[in-house]
């Protein structure tokens, strides 16, 4: 339907908008495709391990392992995670055929995550350093893992809902 510059009638405009929304919903379902399970597990393990490794590196005195060993572990798991993320992102893009976006979930979920998770993962090691209580690290580790599982389930639900 070429319009040759003529504006559509309200009914034609309505039909075009309905079609547009159907396509947007379909594209949104693709964009909400969850990570593959192997990467979801990798991400959860990384988020759980990071505060403990960082806490060990930050500790005033050696805690379980010498500080440099914890630092080495933290850098190693971060490097491994970064490499696996690159592989997972490329595989995900090739599988879905759409760009990887971080704004698929509503802002009320992603903004608290973007602010809260770094505070949790980096703040708990500081609290551990000050108080000497490893409970901070364990709590941050468990909370981080729970957040990772929660977001994965949110993507699974959104993907199913919009598919």
């Amino acid at each position, binding site marked *: 339907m070429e319009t040759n510059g003529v504006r559509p009638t*309200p009914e034609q405009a309505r039909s075009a908008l*309905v*079609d547009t929304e159907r396509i947007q919903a379909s594209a949104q379902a693709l964009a909400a495709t969850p990570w593959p399970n192997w990467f979801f597990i990798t991400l959860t393990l990384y988020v759980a391990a990071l505060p403990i490794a960082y806490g060990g590196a930050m500790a005033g005195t050696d805690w379980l392992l010498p500080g440099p060993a914890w630092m080495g572990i933290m850098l190693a798991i971060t490097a491994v995670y970064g490499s696996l993320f690159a592989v997972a992102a490329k595989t995900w893009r*090739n599988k879905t*055929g759409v760009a990887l976006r971080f704004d698929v979930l509503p802002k009320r979920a992603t903004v608290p995550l973007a602010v809260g998770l770094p505070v949790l993962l980096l703040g708990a090691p500081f609290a551990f350093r000050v108080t000497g209580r490893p409970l901070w690290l364990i709590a941050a580790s468990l909370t981080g893992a729970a957040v990772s599982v929660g977001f994965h389930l949110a993507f699974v639900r959104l993907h199913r809902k919009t598919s």
Partner: protein
Amino acid sequence: MSAEPRDPLEGFDTTIHAPNRLRICALLDTAGEAEFGLVQKQLDLSASALSKHVTALMDAGYAGQRKAVRDTRQRVWLHLTRRGQDAYRGHVAALRAIVGPSDPAL
């Protein structure tokens, strides 16, 4: 001093309004970037028809493409330019204005 409110109907864009182009823009605006083959499949278009519409959008400065190798084959990824996003959103606003504010379904 406040600016005059813009008439949403001014956003009506005849380049975008051709139905398949509107659908292509809707998909690319939501997906950010999409592979040519996926767009073709999602919109049930032939490669030549999609190519023709993409060329029209690119000529208007609304769309761009990027070539990438996948499984040893070269694939084309499509995206809307900033100008294309603005034009598409303006066009959708114009369509909403044409429909009228009281339609609860939109």
